């Protein structure tokens, strides 16, 4: 997907930028990997498809990248993440060139495995919205990553160049497929049961936090020792405390890219918590993170004339 547009653009801008953070085919089928294109001969490696899952905004935060002027390939959610990073002063506008990639959604390997068993790449032929498996046709939307299933913004809200054409806004999903909706539909005790069970599984490896492009604190609250906010023991309650804490730090910032839950080695749908918080933010502040550079972020903005007394 977009290979032609990508190589043409890359040849044009390489030189103007010191590197292009994009995707290249991975070492395993159904995987793309982050790739730093710095030389002419790297350009041919750049590609994009349904497996370009990683949110590349994470890479803008490494020391090496912060000093450079780079181009970065962004899907809808990734572009929103970059906007949040810009707003929070983590990256500089003049150091960035955004290559927007309208996104048809990322395909989940585990969902493919669930349906087709052991996967063999030659069985599949991929197109934008459908694929065939041994000649039989399937809709991509039935195999999307959870975060892509409910994605409302496949097009980057902001970019310097766009690969291909903007996609139509995805239809509002019918009740059952939206996985946050599924959990919210459960009665309270069932919901608690669900989270209690998931929290029981968590081993506190922090892969969710560490792969989140917006969890960039030099010292996370869970690592602090003076005071120490929570015990290092991975018990259900301490785990829940960590995840609730993290969700609150994400409030009005999370762009629903799903990096946290794709990183979780235990398959805990941990994105549900920040997702729910974002829903509350939408409800109370009519705000969505990373949609533009100008709207002030609700929980990061202080005004002396704030109508609410408690905050003044």
């Amino acid at each position, binding site marked *: 997907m977009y290979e032609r547009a990508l190589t043409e653009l890359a040849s044009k801008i390489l030189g103007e930028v010191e590197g292009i953070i994009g995707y290249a085919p*991975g*070492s*395993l*089928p159904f*995987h*793309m*990997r*982050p*790739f*730093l294109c710095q030389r002419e001969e790297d350009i041919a490696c750049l590609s994009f498809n349904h497996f370009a*899952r*990683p949110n590349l905004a*994470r*890479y803008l935060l*490494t*020391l090496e990248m912060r000093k450079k002027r780079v181009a970065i390939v962004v899907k809808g959610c990734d572009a929103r993440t970059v906007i949040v990073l810009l707003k929070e002063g983590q990256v500089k506008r003049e150091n960035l060139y955004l290559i927007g990639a309208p996104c048809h959604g990322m395909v989940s390997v585990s969902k493919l495995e669930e349906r087709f068993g052991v996967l063999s790449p030659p069985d599949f032929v991929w197109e934008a919205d459908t694929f065939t498996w041994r000649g039989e046709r399937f809709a991509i939307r039935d195999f999307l990553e959870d975060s892509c299933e409910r994605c409302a913004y496949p097009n980057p809200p902001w970019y310097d160049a766009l690969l291909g054409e903007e996609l139509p806004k995805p239809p509002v999903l019918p009740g059952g497929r939206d996985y946050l909706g599924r959990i919210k539909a459960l009665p309270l005790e069932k919901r608690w049961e669900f989270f209690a069970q998931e929290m029981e599984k968590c*081993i*506190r*490896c*922090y*892969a969710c936090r*560490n*792969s989140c492009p917006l969890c960039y604190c030099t010292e996370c609250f869970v*690592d602090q*020792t003076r005071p*120490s906010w929570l*015990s*290092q*023991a*991975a*018990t259900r309650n301490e785990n829940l405390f960590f995840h609730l804490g993290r969700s609150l730090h994400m409030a009005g910032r999370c762009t629903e890219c799903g*990096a946290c839950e*794709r*990183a*979780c*080695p*235990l398959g805990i749908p941990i994105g549900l918590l920040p997702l729910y918080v974002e829903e509350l933010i939408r409800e109370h502040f009519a705000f969505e993170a990373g949609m533009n550079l100008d709207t002030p972020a609700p929980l990061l903005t202080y005004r002396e004339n704030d109508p609410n007394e408690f905050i003044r």
Partner: protein
Amino acid sequence: MKGKFVTHEQVFTWMERERGLVVITERAQKKYHHLLPSHLITVKTAKELFFSPWEAVYRYTLQGKTWVIEEKVEHSSFPSFLVLLPCEAKAILEVTDVNFMTEDTPDLGYARRRRGVTLIIVGCERIEQTCFCSLVGCSPFWRHRESVFLFPWKGHFYLEDGEEKLSLSPFEDPQKAQAVETFFAETICTLPLPLPANFPEKLYAHFDDPLWQKMAWHCVNCGACTYLCPTCYCFDLSVDGKLRGLTLHTWDSCMFPKFTLHASSHNPRPTGKERVRQRVMHKFSYFPLRNKYYGCVGCGVCREICPVNWDIKEVVEGMVRQVER
């Protein structure tokens, strides 16, 4: 050792009967769910049974002016048998046991839990796309004299259980046993060759190779690989509570900046490059130089779960080429 044979039923019934005493790893369960009982207690990794993700080592209280310290010993019942894949068994026997059950300073909790557990290794009929066990001295049929070995063979299980730990009354069939041995030997010949014999020494000399920077680039240091790796055994000690509380022993990972953060705030592994290098070096150089076995068993779990497709096999093969240049 020549093996014997048992029927699928015999193994199935035995496991059913000993249910409370048998634990199976998730990977073995996934592979052999059609032959083994489905409701056995499962664990994500084999190591977590002996090396807990977290455990309290001491309980302490300040009473008057003295600290009262008690060792915390759990008394819960523990399994007697652990069913697992060859690579998972090698990780226990030749890595975590070697690290934790040293003669001078054994880890008491680990040793207590580990003693008395018999490993039942089930060989691999199918080699997964992510497996590379043959590179690091393991194989789909890797066996160990103190453990039981099972392999599905033409409607039966091939069984090696010299000490009769399973009391299964197997039957003998020397001809068939020979066929199994031949199959193992022939299959092993078709697998990728082991890493060069002196790779650990050579890699050691490449500590400052600029290639590390390039290879480490796209790892986000999330740590998932080390937590699920069957051989990673790093842990942290922390105290939980001021005047009374617990000393906790929890999993840790060299992927984290805090892992090497000094009290002075100096960090000898400040960036991803040093941390990724440590992970590879520890498994492929430091550990084998000290203990003769690789610190990686080639199970491929990390390759499978890495969210950004950072691939240890690819990196090690790249380093092999680099050191041979």
